[in-house]
């Protein structure tokens, strides 16, 4: 058996996923016990698929939770740190696009009074 598939897991509810997680963990425990006794090759291979399935289920649980949380925090001022934009530390501390574009009154007036002129030569 090749283990669970992600697209089938995504349709499940949180409770279902957690139940599946418990099942998989129990299977892994029994496989480990078999290994201690001396297991066949097929069982050892199965261990790998089970471990990866557990990882898959956990990933999907996490992804769903985070997606829900992002919806919840959308538009709010303060967001948990791990949901914020990551970029790099320096980039986060840079001026925002809006802040960079701000001009003084003086500058604004100048740009209106003396805009960049375009000239063309008559051929």
């Amino acid at each position, binding site marked *: 058996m090749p283990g669970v598939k992600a697209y089938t897991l995504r349709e499940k509810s949180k409770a279902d996923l957690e139940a599946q997680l418990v099942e998989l*963990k*129990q299977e892994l*425990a029994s496989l480990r*016990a078999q290994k201690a*006794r001396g297991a066949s090759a097929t069982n050892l291979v199965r261990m790998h698929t089970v471990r990866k399935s557990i990882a898959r289920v956990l990933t999907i649980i996490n992804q769903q939770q985070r997606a829900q*949380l992002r919806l919840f925090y959308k538009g709010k001022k*303060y967001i*948990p740190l791990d949901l914020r934009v990551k970029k790099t530390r320096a980039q986060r501390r840079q001026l925002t696009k809006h802040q960079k574009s701000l001009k003084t009154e003086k500058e604004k007036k100048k740009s209106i009074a003396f805009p960049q002129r375009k000239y063309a030569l008559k051929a």
Partner: protein
Amino acid sequence: MAPKSKTTEKAVAAKKAVVKGIHGKKVTKIRTSTTFHRPKTLRLPRSPKYQRKSIPHAPRLDQYKVIIGPHSNESTMKKLEESNTIVFTVDIKANKRHIKDAFKSLYNVDVAKVTTLITPTGSKKAYIRLTSENDVLDVANRVGFI
């Protein structure tokens, strides 16, 4: 005394200001001890505006992580038959209480006591003694020991 009018009140206040000065009287605390102790101030509990971590982590050392698998050799078989004890490899970070609870919840048996040791190879071995009413061999079969 003639009833005080506003003008006389004003005059009296002005006189006082000139004589005594306009600064109020300085009030100094009476200190009854020579040592100065830091005064106790208000300490508010935390009320964060947002959680720092979005999702608190699930318990990292759950029952499946604590108990790794049965440990089997001739001496453990002997312990199984004689002292009603089953030997397990266990996560190093687990303590005896963790092991007891994990075993109980996983295999539905009562545990009398747990002794642990850390092997020279760095793994933890737990000698789990079951209460006398439980049949160790039965548990061992379920676990996959034998």
